[in-house]
């Protein structure tokens, strides 16, 4: 199955999308387009509406205003279940099914889609190889027998298993130790280049955004302040963008400045 973008070539498009919880507006006026092969990173501080925006795309939350198009079709015309099976979803806490083996976890969507068993088995092997896990060693393990990094690899394999044209990732590497995180970021970057998927990736880590994104969407207070290419972002005059760039250089010079810097890079 190849990505099947809409007639305009886009996988995902948001037009002036908003989300309200009661009377409180969480997200408003968000518009962006993502084509196959592109990775849009939604960057912002905690609580700026990045995750909410992501959940609006696969209808874990319902938009209050605006429109979303998935593969050129209005999102509301899609059956929510069908829609979600065409959108891979990876979250920080992974959410592997603890009572299922790695093999069963990865095979989840193909089995839901009633693929023939032989094809499911083959696909699981491919996916585990893709994320760098030895099939013989890991297929029969339970999630509790994996390290954090291995779990997230399985999470990515599971999200890709049914070959969805769109991939949503919510701080997938946020809970990992720095070394494992760097390893997975690098590998994922390679993977993203090969796969030709439309990827929307939420993070609060500019370094990660610069590494992974073909575009960076900056969120402030529930709004998309701007969409930049990575080098454009570094030169931006926007105050929030500057704040992120400054935090980056602060992190690099930690050894000759005050200890408070380590705390600025942590998740709030």
């Amino acid at each position, binding site marked *: 199955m190849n990505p099947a973008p809409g007639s305009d070539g886009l996988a995902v498009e948001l037009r002036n999308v908003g989300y309200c919880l009661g009377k409180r507006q969480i997200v408003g006026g968000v518009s962006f387009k993502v084509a196959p092969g592109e990775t849009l990173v939604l960057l912002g501080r905690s609580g700026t509406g990045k995750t909410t925006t992501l959940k609006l795309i696969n209808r874990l939350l319902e938009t209050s205003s605006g429109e979303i198009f998935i593969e050129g079709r209005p999102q509301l015309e899609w059956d929510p279940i069908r829609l*979600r099976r065409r959108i891979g979803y990876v*979250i920080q806490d992974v959410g592997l099914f*603890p009572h299922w083996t790695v093999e069963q976890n990865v095979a989840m969507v193909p089995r839901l889609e009633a693929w023939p068993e032989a094809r499911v088995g083959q696909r699981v092997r491919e996916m585990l190889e893709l994320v760098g896990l030895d099939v013989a060693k890991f297929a029969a393990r339970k999630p509790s027998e994996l390290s954090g990094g291995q779990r997230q690899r399985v999470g990515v394999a599971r999200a890709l298993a049914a070959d969805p044209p769109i991939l949503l990732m919510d701080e997938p590497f946020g809970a990992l130790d720095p070394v494992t995180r760097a390893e997975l970021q690098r590998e994922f970057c390679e993977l993203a280049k090969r796969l030709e998927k439309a990827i929307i990736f939420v993070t609060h880590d500019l370094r990660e955004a610069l590494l992974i994104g073909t575009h960076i969407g900056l969120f402030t207070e529930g709004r998309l302040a701007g969409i930049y290419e990575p080098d454009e972002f570094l030169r931006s005059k926007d105050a929030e963008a500057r704040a992120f760039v400054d935090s980056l250089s602060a992190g690099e010079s930690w050894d000759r400045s005050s200890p408070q810097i380590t705390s600025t890079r942590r998740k709030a």
Partner: protein
Amino acid sequence: MGQKFAADHEHKEEGVSFLTFLVNYRGEIFSRTLEHLLLVAAAMLAAVLVGIPLGIALVRRHNLRRWVLGTANVIQTIPSLALFGFLIPVPFLGGIGARTAIVALALYALLPILRNTYTGIAGVDPAVLESARGMGMTQRQILWDVQLPLSIAVILAGVRVAMIICIGVATIAAAIGAGGLGVFIFRGVAMVSNSVILAGAIPAALLAIGVDLILGWVEEKLTPKA
């Protein structure tokens, strides 16, 4: 029957041992045990059929939760003899006999089953549910493939507690003519005969222990290894 017992009572005073009593009355002990088990089984079946689906429903209905769990709690605090008494005048459910007893036992069994089902399902890791929903599982698939397998141990623990309560409380059912092992206990109290009381109490205790062991084994078999 009554005369026979009166006669036996005299015998006991003359030193007939408890064991002899058991041997002489093995037929009735067996049939009362069976009666007891049937009362408990019928009540538990009803409690499980109502309690588990209701417990599942409570996870999604916040407004219902307080009322349903509150009511079940209140029922639990009613003394068993009083509950049997209350039910006798109730049309359709009440009256003298096994039906009333089964209704009362089912009401007692309801709370542990309801509460554990609710606690078990509500305790499933939210990240697991989010990924299940996000990857396109239907509500039904989430319930059967994720929520129930992950909470089965907690639900079964509730069924076990309910079962023990039921076996104990069912001895009171004899007071409203429902039979069971309580018949011996009430008779023994009336006759001031320890042998007769024990003929009801010991099988009831053994029943509770045996059933608990069996359910413990089932629980272990059904709990998915994490």
